[in-house]
């Protein structure tokens, strides 16, 4: 199978960084006094990772630590030397500091210098936004870039003793989220052995005109916090209602842009709201039942910006030569729909992964 139009760009390697050991629902339940079965039934997430010690609250992995690790692994997987990276784009909602940016701290850790770096303040669609920017940079003459995305929860989830007394609406945040980062090496060329994933379409649209936010993540500094400011808010009803529709729209638009037929899609990377939601979203995408889901949220929790790249990292190990995949992402804070159409060239080989 080949596509008439040349790919927009290529993804030659991916890598991930999930801090420490996986935290099971039982451990999470014990730490926060939350019912384990409640998590199983209503959320569907089995494990997640945290970049801090749950007992002491002490941070063990900063976002920079995770981003540098993921990027280094992606470079290793791509066989790219750090000196050959022409630009870096990092997306996150939860930078280690407003300044300096986590993008530049990550570049420093990787030994990168004299190259353009960007940090996107973004939600779950951040990785696709970063890839879109990478596409433009590659089209502008750069050869190789790094796209990194990740989030950490330590400022938003208080590990203090009063967690169990929170209302369910807030308590759910403790079981939904996890910390993590992932990265991709993007290239203008397919590489010598054509093993890179080819990106054939990329969608990235703001779709929130007139829609109230589905999610709010606040921040405050040294000044006394405004009690009216919401630090973490999710409108689950709105999210449940709107994400499946927006995801279905995204899939339709990606098919149109790539010129692919639904039955040619072997793998789907759906939005990763929670283990429960994913099943509902998959059902409404209008793709053949045979297409296989590539999800990570059940194992990683909602890791925000990292999610699409974590899914790509899984896809890299699964997509067979000639195989095609669609990724759909919905960012629910002020509603962005985004997605990718990906193909493994028929001459390439699946990465050997147990």
């Amino acid at each position, binding site marked *: 199978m080949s596509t008439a139009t040349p790919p927009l760009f290529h993804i030659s390697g991916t890598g991930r*960084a999930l801090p420490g050991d996986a935290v099971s629902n039982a451990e999470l339940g014990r730490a926060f006094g939350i019912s384990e079965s409640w998590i199983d039934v209503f959320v569907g997430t089995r494990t997640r990772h945290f970049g801090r010690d749950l007992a002491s609250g002490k941070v063990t992995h900063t976002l920079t630590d995770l981003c540098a*690790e993921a990027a280094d692994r992606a470079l290793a997987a791509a*066989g790219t*030397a750090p000196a*050959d990276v022409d630009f870096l784009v990092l997306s996150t909602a939860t930078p280690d500091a407003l300044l300096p940016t986590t993008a530049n701290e990550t570049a420093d850790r990787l030994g990168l210098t004299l190259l353009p770096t960007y940090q996107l303040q973004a939600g779950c669609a951040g990785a696709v936004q970063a890839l879109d920017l990478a596409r433009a940079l590659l089209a502008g003459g750069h050869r190789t870039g790094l796209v990194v995305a990740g989030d950490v929860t330590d400022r938003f989830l208080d590990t203090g003793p009063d967690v169990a007394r929170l209302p369910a609406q807030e308590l759910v945040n403790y079981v939904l989220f996890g910390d993590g980062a992932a990265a991709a090496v993007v290239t203008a060329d397919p590489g010598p052995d054509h093993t890179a994933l080819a990106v054939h379409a990329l969608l990235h649209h703001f779709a929130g005109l007139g829609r109230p936010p589905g999610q709010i993540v606040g921040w405050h500094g040294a000044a006394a916090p405004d009690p009216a400011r919401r630090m973490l808010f999710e409108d689950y009803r709105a999210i449940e209602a709107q994400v499946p529709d927006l995801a279905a729209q995204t899939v339709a638009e990606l098919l149109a842009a790539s010129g692919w037929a639904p039955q040619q899609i072997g793998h789907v990377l759906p939005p990763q709201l929670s283990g429960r939601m994913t099943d509902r979203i998959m059902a409404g995408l209008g793709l053949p039942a045979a297409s296989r889901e590539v999800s990570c949220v059940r194992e990683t929790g909602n890791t925000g910006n990292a999610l699409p790249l974590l899914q790509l990292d899984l896809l890299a190990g699964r997509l067979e030569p000639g195989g095609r995949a669609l990724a759909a992402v919905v960012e629910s804070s002020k509603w962005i729909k985004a997605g990718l159409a990906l193909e493994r060239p028929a001459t390439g080989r699946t990465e050997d992964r147990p």
Partner: protein
Amino acid sequence: MNAVAVVGLDCVFPAARGAEAYWDLLMRGGDAIGPLPADRRGYGFDHTVRGGFLDDAAAFDSDFFTLAPREAAAMDPQQRLLLQCAWRALEDSGRSPASLADTDTGVFIGVMGSEWAQLHMADYAAVTPQLGAGSSAGMTANRISYHLNLKGPSLAVDTACSSSLVAVHLAVNSLLAGECSTALAGGANIVLTPALGMVYRQMGLMAPDGRCKPFSRDADGIGRSDGAGVVVLRRLEDALADGQRVYAVVRGTAVNQDGRSNGVTAPNKWSQRAVVAAAYRRAGVRADQISFIEAHGTGTALGDIIECAALGELHAVPRTRPCAIGSVKGNIGHTEAAAGIAGLIKTALALHHRTVPASRFATAENPQLRLAERGLSLLSAPVRLPAGEVFAGVSSFGMGGTNAHAVLAGPPRGPRPARRGHPAAGVFTLSADTPEALRRNLAAQAETLARRPRGDAAAVCWTSNRAKTGLPHRAAFTARDTAELAETLRRAAADHLPESAADHTWRPAAVGFLYSGHGCQEPGMTAALYREHPLYRRHLDDVDDVLGPHTGGSVRDLILAGDPAVHRTRWALPAQFAVACALTRTLAGLGVLPDAVLGHGAGEYAAAVAAGVLELPDAARLVAAHAAAADTLPESGMLAVRGARAEIEDVLTAHPELFPAALDGPRDLVLAGPAQALEQAAETLAERGLHVRALRSAHPAHGPAAAAVADRIHTAFATLSPARPGIVLASTRYGRTLADETMDAAYWAGLAVEPVRFADALSALVHEVAPTCLVEIGPAPHLLRLAERADLPAGIRLLHPAPGPDATGADLAEALGGLYVSGVEPYWDALYEPEHRRAEPLAPYVFSDARRYWQTARPADRPQPAAPAAPGEAPAPAPAAAGEPAAAPRREPGGTPGDPVLSAVIAAVVEVGEYPPEQVHAQARFYEDLGFDSVMIMQLKDRIERHLPHTAGLSVQQLLPALRSVGSLAAFVQEWAGAKAMA
């Protein structure tokens, strides 16, 4: 193609100790120019002198190179710095310098004579043999060859300021001609006298501020500087085949001469252009392909103009971007003999990092140079080099008109083998010459690793196995993850090293393999290792293939399924045998072979295979027959008792049907017999407070009840033709090592019924082989526990490559690390998957700077130092030895402390080498510990005669055989004098 790879490098320049610091200085646009250090000042050479000076050129780790302080103190610091640079550069190339010993490795060093010699050799009354060697320029190269035992060409070259780039040219040609397979090339320069500065001043070449300001309108001459640098070169195809990291590729070099120009020291535009053009031709590149040139760029007005004119004639061609030019002399000054290597290392690092540092003083470009119209530009800011193939040039011109140019290309950027999976375990190894040095280097490695992003440790470990082994004090750490490894190393460095991490390996390694016997099988034993480790997987598959026809089923499948049927006697013995043979073969594949083996009872089958007594198919048949026969015996049991034979004698009398099946230790016995009798015995013994434990064995192993097994073996294996063991085999049937007995059918039949004399066999093995480590070859630490309780001599490391059913590659790696620390030299490559056998950057070796040696002799016009130490003997430069007291003198077999002859010999040795007195004790060895050579031996004889007049007449030839240790020499002198007195 003429392609020579730069695979390793190290340097020391003003304000930049090491390559990383050098690159940092360049990228910062740092300025290393300052006043002459106080310890060099003297007549005509004072605080007003400016230049680039090493702040600590006197520090030298003489002990590391086993150099006597007297000799180290007599050595030109150029020699000392080059020795250390050579070691670090070789390690940086991913290979232990020890691994190059005895090879055709060449050494090519550029030096401009020796100011050290000018200082020291003019005082004829003070010359010594040490000073003679220490002052020779040729010795800069020869020392490296001598201390690292390199046997290729070794030469110093002096073409004034182009010396070290000419040395690189000679090294490249030597490699391309096939004269050597690895070449060290470099140069050194240490400013010790004002003389050359005065010459420059008279020629109008000296910058008043001591700063080179290359290509600047302010350029007004040069400043002299110190420096040393060494690169390791290999033919590109060899470097790639050996998985070495390539900084850059030398694609072409050229050397020519000004000939009869406007004066012997005047530069010549035509010749400069010709040498650059010749290098381009050899490299097969056009001028417009060159991205940047590290120019000679001294910052003399005339020199800059001529160099730019020459380059302009080649580079004023249509091109998309001008060729950038710069010179490191703006940062560190003119390092003269080391200038070429300073430029080459800068260029190699620039290609490696794909970034060219800015050239200092570029913002004040000299308009007379007309750079723009010549296709040239100055680098006023660092630039990224474009992706794809990049070329760069390096120029170096000598005052006498010998010009050199080299064309370098970026490293080949092929895709590295990338495969992802479960991060594999590796062993990080480090070695050093003393425990203190080991700690110092552990801290350095930890610090460097901690700065990396967290990642898989396997490639880092593999690199360390190749580059960081070979010295006597060793440490090894199993790791999967770099962050955890960094933390482990940091803790080990801070913990003053647990004894387990460091060993003095003067004693050769001796390895004993202990094969466990009955009852140690576990369902799923080694299954995790099988799944993770390809080497073990292959060997278990192979052994299973051999066993299968005799057992009627696959023990491997049984093991992998975790089937409890493995406890049935029919399967237990073959399964244990398969695991033991596969582990033995796995260890052999990793380079670990036993010097002695011992098998506990039925464990002797696998031990006999390891010792070469039985072929695997014969042993497999034997084991299967033994197991099948035992499986048909009436059920019975075994009981392990923690008690002495005397404590249970009455129980054995009361139950004559019980039989002592194994004598495992002074307080470790196993009883066998019918279940009921065993139960009663267990009850009685437990009441006495003895620890008892029933063993999992459905059938009797050993004892009269096993007679049917013996009969079966006797009849079925009458034709068995065992070989003699190739190594020591301790027999648990006899309780001693095997002498002339053959392990024929009668032997094995006897083994099946007689008690297992493990304690005696182990004791015999330890006595005869003096093992440095014992390795349990079995799935549980059974024999190691017994060994722990056996009151063995101290210092035997107990290792277990497959402890328990969950053991993985990490446990195997851990055991391999223990073997390495015990003195074994494993074949590390076999531990790693091909994609992990890839060189990663590691911190270079950190030498001790505790000892300092600086000139104390003065040129003739300065006051002479204090009176000589002994009448009639010239004074040598004295070491300003600092700190680092050696270990306290140890007690001595070769002489009692206080013995006057020993004291006199020690005094004589201390004088000859000017050692710190605590370093010279009766056990100190002349060659290995004290670095003695023939010159020192001659001096020693004279000294001994002076201290002990009655030894007059003793000849050097007579002394030679006794020169093992100070103690052995003292004993010999004593004996000789005694015999003479008797005569």
